[in-house]
């Protein structure tokens, strides 16, 4: 769908036009074409608001915003970048950028990152860096962690586990009460990737996890086996809901909402769905994935969504100004607020929404993620490795006895993919 937003007619949807952030900015003119994948209702309103507000700052600028379906964009972006490229597009951080960086379709934005205003985004710079240069800017990210039923924990007299022993003991109590410890729907595979990220980084550390993602470690390595051995403890207890390979992540939610399962390892986006399902803040709480190896600093999954400028963009200066606008503290506070995206701002000077889960996530990522920030299995691992890998992880969760065969298969794929 096409939205031509005439700046003169624009309304201030979010009311965040910040004169302070752009006091010195000269007014822009000409065209700015944005293609965005923020197609879900709340993100869509945010994106439309961003275009409107930016247009209000620059009345001479003609902004053309096109919002495409988020799933479809994952394959459409290829055509979009090559034929009649827009000036700004959405994508994801880390290894997911590789195909476009290698093909020279993303513009090198290292000069933009030298702007003093970007210093406040230092924490995400690593995720935007490939081959020593930066290829885009982030606009939001969100934490992963264990969302659990506080009322069930209270009923059983359990506390949030900090160590693996506590975790296993908790889980045994939950199982004894006739419930499952975790719900998961692995039909579309990636949920199993989240479990692997945590099991592996807690067992072997962030550095090892990234080495594995970069193809520098064999899948048949003893350390990888140790990860699966820990994971298997939960599987053998029967900690996960049965038949999870038949459900999507949404279809697995009712187990938690009905109290048949006590917790869900998920991204923060699941909170909205859980609240829609009828869980209140008194029933729902969050804890960081417990420690497994005490010598290892915790690393967290916190996928980052980004803006990029295609190499073939026509209005580069306007696009760069837009990226600076999006990452400025006031805009960051507004678009990540509880009534907008409900996620974490990337700018250190932005204020964090007072939603309890966003607060907890912000606290966790700021103070207790010293190991590092992972982007998620399917963004850290190259595409082909991710798809083969997640299929193996799903099989492991259903048939843990097939582990040797699975690991050999993954190792075979690794040798081929990273050559």
């Amino acid at each position, binding site marked *: 769908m096409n939205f031509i937003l005439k700046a003169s007619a624009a309304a201030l949807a979010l009311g965040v036009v910040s004169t302070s952030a752009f006091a010195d900015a000269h007014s822009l003119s000409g065209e700015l074409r944005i293609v965005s994948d923020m197609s879900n209702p709340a993100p869509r309103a945010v994106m439309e608001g961003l275009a409107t507000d930016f247009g209000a700052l620059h009345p001479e600028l003609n902004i053309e915003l096109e919002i495409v379906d988020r799933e479809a964009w994952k394959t459409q972006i290829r055509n979009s970048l090559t034929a009649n490229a827009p000036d700004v597009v959405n994508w994801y951080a880390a290894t997911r950028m590789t195909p476009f960086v290698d093909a020279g379709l993303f513009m090198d934005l290292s000069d933009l990152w030298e702007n003093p205003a970007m210093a406040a985004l230092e924490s995400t710079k690593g995720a935007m860096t490939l081959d020593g240069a930066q290829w885009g800017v982030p606009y939001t990210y969100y934490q992963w962690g264990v969302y659990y039923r506080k009322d069930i924990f209270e009923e059983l007299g359990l506390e949030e586990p900090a160590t693996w022993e506590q975790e296993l003991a908790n889980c045994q109590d939950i199982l004894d009460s006739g419930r499952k410890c975790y719900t998961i729907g692995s039909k579309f595979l990636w949920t199993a990737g989240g479990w692997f990220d945590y099991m592996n980084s807690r067992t072997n550390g962030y550095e090892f996890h990234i080495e594995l993602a970069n193809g520098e470690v064999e899948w048949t390595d003893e350390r990888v086996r140790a990860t699966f051995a820990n994971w298997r403890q939960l599987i053998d207890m029967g900690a996960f809901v049965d038949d999870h390979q*038949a459900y999507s992540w949404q279809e697995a939610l009712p187990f938690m909402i009905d109290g048949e399962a006590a917790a869900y390892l998920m991204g923060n986006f699941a909170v909205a769905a859980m609240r829609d399902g009828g869980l209140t803040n008194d029933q729902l709480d969050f804890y960081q994935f417990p420690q497994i190896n005490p010598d290892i600093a915790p690393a967290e999954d916190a996928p980052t969504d980004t803006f990029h400028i295609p190499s073939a963009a026509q209005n580069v200066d306007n696009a760069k100004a837009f990226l600076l606008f999006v990452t400025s503290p006031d805009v960051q506070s507004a678009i990540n607020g509880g009534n907008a995206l409900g996620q974490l701002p990337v700018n250190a000077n932005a204020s964090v929404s007072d939603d309890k889960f966003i607060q907890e996530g912000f606290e966790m990522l700021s103070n207790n993620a010293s190991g590092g920030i992972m982007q998620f299995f399917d963004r850290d691992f190259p595409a082909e490795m991710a*798809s083969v890998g997640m299929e193996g992880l799903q099989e492991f969760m*259903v048939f843990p006895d097939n582990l040797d065969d699975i690991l050999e298969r993954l190792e075979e794929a690794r040798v081929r993919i990273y050559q």
Partner: protein
Amino acid sequence: MATATAGNRSWYKRNEIAATPWVFLIPGIFMFSLYVIYPIFQSFWISFHEWDGLGEKTWVGLANYERLLGGDRKFETSFWNNIRWLVLYLLAIPMGLFISLFLNQKVFGIRLYKSMFFFPFVISQVVVGLVFSWFYLPNDGLFDVLVGKIGIDISGGILGNPNTATYGIIAAGLWPQTAYCMILYLTGLNAVDPEQVEAARLDGAKGARMLWYIILPQLKPATFIAFVVTIIGALRSFDFIAVMTNGGPFGSTRVLSFYMFEESLSEFGFRMGYGAAIAVVLFFIMLGFIGYFLKSMYQDEKGAY
């Protein structure tokens, strides 16, 4: 005399009889070459390369085929699943035949019954797949409840269990395909010669013998078409798999067409060379069948004149 007159006429006038069909065929030939023949050779060409769809193609010779045919387990699974589809999908033909024999009578409301049997073919395959995947859901699905009553418990549900998932999808596919074969046979039955049936009845033929010796031979054209559409339907069994299992659990329901899509066009795909190699293999498998059908069709036509 005649040659002199002919010499004065234009080339087209002289060759009108031979040339006119070609003139009419030109648009068709042009479109067919551009959208079918040319892409086939393009696929051959791409299959000798490694290409992510964006950058330069790298020539790798037969490497894609060596990997594909030299023990790629995904390919083997897909291939055997294709065979399962081919064999089991043919059940649609006898099932369609029996339903059509059953419906080929004149009672009040038969049109309504016929259209209800035909209904699954009218609705989209995606809808059929979705409905069946709910039907198969573990615990809550109707199928699980029914077989649970007689004490059978399939772990993971039909679609979550790698041993049953493909059969579950084929069963879903058989529903609309049976309806299609039924319609073909119903039209065929209209053309059955009543005098022959009468004569056979006088000779004492009935039941199975009547069906086998009198009715079926007259239904041969319908059987042929049913065979062709069913084989082709089995080989392009893509929608059901994409909707019902997405190739899972752990890739056990892939078929060649789905594997090709996954490698070349899915979210984690864009290995165009490898996808093209799968497409080429699938092309040759289909070519075998289509060649056979074209040959028998050609011979039938020749016999007709």
